[in-house]
């Protein structure tokens, strides 16, 4: 059962780290409506 709980915690850790990690690569999931994408330049 310890392994099961640690896997669930790992899933949550991955979820919390994912946005910041993606941001490092210039990827921003689910942020396509941010001002950068609609800026008139």
């Amino acid at each position, binding site marked *: *059962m310890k*392994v*099961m709980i*640690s*896997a*669930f915690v*790992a*899933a*949550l850790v*991955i*979820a*919390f780290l*994912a*946005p910041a990690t993606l941001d490092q690569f210039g*990827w921003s*999931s*689910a942020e*396509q409506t941010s001002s950068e*994408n*609609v*800026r*008139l*330049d």
Partner: protein
Amino acid sequence: MNFKLFSAAFLVLATLAFNPVWAQDIPEAARADNGGGQTLEDIMARQERLKADGGSRSKETGDPANAAAISEQLGTRGGRSDADVWRGVRYDDIDIKTQVRNPAADVLIQDGGVPWYKLREGPVISYGGGAILGIIVLLVVFYFIRGRIKIEGGPAGTTIERFKAVERFGHWLLAGSFIALGLTGLITLMGRSFLIPVIGPDAFATMAAGSKWIHNNVAWAFMLGLVMTFVMWVAHNIPNKLDWHWLKAGGGIFTKSHPSAKKFNAGQKIVFWTVMVLGVSVSLSGLSLLFPFQMPMFADTFGIMNNVLGTSFPTDLTPHEEMQYANLWHSIVAFVMMVAIIAHIYIGSVGMEGAFDAMGNGQVDVEWARQHHDLWVEEVQAKQGKGESL
């Protein structure tokens, strides 16, 4: 005099009474009467989300060759009125340039949105939801007919290691994330229909935002779990002749026999390949949705299918159509996976005595192992010196 008045009144009333009928029965004439514009029938059809006839209107997009002089009315518009321009946009007849910078910016009107929305809110929810309820009912009925599959003769009392910690970690990473994704996916898909009437739009807005965050970010854990379990178990899941014998015996579920099996029996192999194939598919369509317009894949897929199967799927898709196909496919594949996994959860928990231990603490009863995976037990015992360290 009275007769004349009566006739005039009758004529007026008859005109009022029959006019709507004329509008519906002779739409082409009505359309011609108003210069090719909308008819009452078009408006009514659009309100009922039916297909409106745009045949003649689609050509009314102005003619720059006959543009009025610059000093005249509409002269500065190059021969196109606002209505002409928007009809051109609507029927993809003019070249659109926008200052908005994103891949889908030049699609201002997209008809496919309505059929997609109707499919999503209709058959996808009803058939998908029906399939989930159906498998649950089926399993409850099966439980009452067959009962819990017990260890014949009772447990031996000694155990054998079925799965190492890393295998269980990979399984639970995949399973935990899949359950989170399934629940949040259902909230996202069905919440508008089933939750808003119960908890109201404000509470649902909070729940939907949370679901979206979980769904978008837990997806990475699911993909990692998928890769881990594939690498660890693919060698044990290659189909062989033994699986055919196992399937012919129906896994012994109804005959109460125990067909031979190695580490994974044919039923488990079916679950493995279902999860792998559909898991990759749901991940790819999920990535396409996660990065809108960045990863279109349906036009290319349809192109390959058309070449191989001779089908005629559309290969010229707008960015929005790509997203709509990805969304529908993502939902359909997810529902098939949910149905398979619910059955897997049943047989791995309440459906079979001793099965949960395999993923619970990794140790299963030797008698359970002999009855369900006899050849695997022999392999392990041969490796460990005839079971000295069981």
